[in-house]
């Protein structure tokens, strides 16, 4: 298993404050990593450093050669003053062959939306379109920044289900920031709890028992997660 991105001891300062403090992390092939943590804990900054938007003040980020990254941004408010169709948005700066368009739009279930205007879509539809755009050109790594934050519970469930299916079918690597704890625990393989530094990391079941997780999210949350994990496993056994 080769590493796609390695961050070693990265520190980022902004306005006299340490946003990331000595963070090290490896993203390996076929990983499904979720970064959890309170607001202002540097989650988005970490993703942006890993993708090379910003250079860290200290430490190093190394990427595998020819790494192709697909990105789903955090807040996406489609600009109402710009008239643009979904199809044209997907084709901006990227050339989509009819085959690829067909494959991706079936995969993300957006075939019926292609000729609609981008600014009449619901949150869930918009999210699927962003996911579709991130898949253009067959990326080996998908980076998602709170992809389901504006969706209702049913929407979140559908989105994570879709994401898991794409993860399995395309055999790619996923690195995601999320607040949706219960969803994360069910879908993800590895959790990293970040509050400026890496508080704890590992498999979801293990992390919820970590004392650092309890201090970060509270005892109640940790217990709730443990219960959810149990229930989740249980239903799989049947």
């Amino acid at each position, binding site marked *: 298993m080769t590493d796609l991105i390695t961050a070693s001891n990265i520190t980022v300062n902004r*306005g006299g404050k340490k946003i990331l403090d000595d963070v090290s992390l490896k993203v390996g092939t076929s990983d499904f990593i979720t970064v959890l943590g309170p607001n202002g804990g540097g989650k988005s900054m970490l993703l*942006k450093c890993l*993708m090379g*938007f910003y250079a860290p003040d200290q430490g190093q980020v190394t990427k595998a050669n020819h790494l192709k*990254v697909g*990105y789903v*941004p*955090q807040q*996406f408010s*489609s*600009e109402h*003053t*710009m*008239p*643009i*169709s979904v199809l*044209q*948005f997907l084709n*901006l*700066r*990227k050339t989509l062959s009819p085959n690829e368009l067909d494959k991706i739009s079936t995969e993300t279930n957006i075939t019926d939306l292609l000729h609609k*205007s*981008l600014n009449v879509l619901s949150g869930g539809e918009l999210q699927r379109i*962003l996911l579709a*755009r991130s898949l253009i050109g067959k990326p080996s790594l998908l*980076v998602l*920044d709170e992809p389901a934050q504006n969706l209702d519970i049913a929407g979140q469930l559908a989105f994570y289900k879709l994401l898991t299916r794409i993860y399995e079918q395309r055999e790619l690597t996923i690195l995601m920031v999320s607040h949706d704890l219960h969803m994360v625990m069910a879908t993800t393989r590895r959790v990293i709890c970040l509050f400026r530094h890496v508080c704890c990391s590992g498999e979801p079941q293990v992390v919820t028992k970590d004392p650092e997780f309890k201090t970060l999210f509270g005892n109640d949350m940790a217990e709730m997660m443990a219960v959810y994990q149990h229930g989740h496993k249980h239903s799989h056994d049947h």
Partner: protein
Amino acid sequence: MTIEPFIIKGLLAGVIVALVAGVMGCFVVWRRMAYFGDSLAHSALLGIALGIALGVNHNLSVIMLCSLFALILVWLQQKRIFATDTLLGILAHASLSIGVITISILEQIIDLHSYLFGDILTVGNDQIWWLVVGGGSVLGVLTYNWSSLVLMTIDEDLAQAENVPVARYQMLLMFLMTIVVAISIKIVGILLIASLLIIAPAASRQLSKSPEMMAMIACLIGVISVVIGMYFSFELDTPSGPTIVAALAALFVISFPISRITTKKMRTFLSQNEETRPLS
């Protein structure tokens, strides 16, 4: 009846400005740069004053002063002490005031009115060259980088993830705006440049289905307004800027019923197609 050369020159100047402002104006509307454009135009008077004082071409001195204005703005924005509109309000009106003071100190006979409201019929040959070269480069740069600029306008992070140099493009847009302001002063005047950038694209928005279509219809609306505005400016001897802007405003109002008709037609067309489509 023979057409006087000054009318042809004015018309040519007005058409070029309308084309440039139509395309640039789309970005002004999409990226909410209207107040920025307005402030830039206000500060242009100081640029003109300095140009007169130093004996430099007005276009050049305006581009240089407005670029400096934009750099100061970006620098102040990064300090995050005041909101952008506060900063713009301070910079714009301070430089407008200093500009007026400088002009009054210079003790030269200057027609301030023509700088504030435009005087399309006195456009000279050198100004036509500035319009062709300056306006042409603005249009060229915008067209060449079109899809990257559109993507960045939709979402900056998404553009950054695709290696679009977002910060550099933001500076580029600001610089292009300074050129547009400089070359439009003679046509619509300092106080009305922002409306030239906003009204045509806003009217076009109602009628368009894509970003390119919006830019093209904005150009068309701009050109029509310039022709109508110039005609009335000549006939009624009114300042060209307000007359062109009044024509733009009239077209903006008309764009509402027109857009309603076109969407209605589209809808009936679609529903007819729906009915005739065989059931599968």
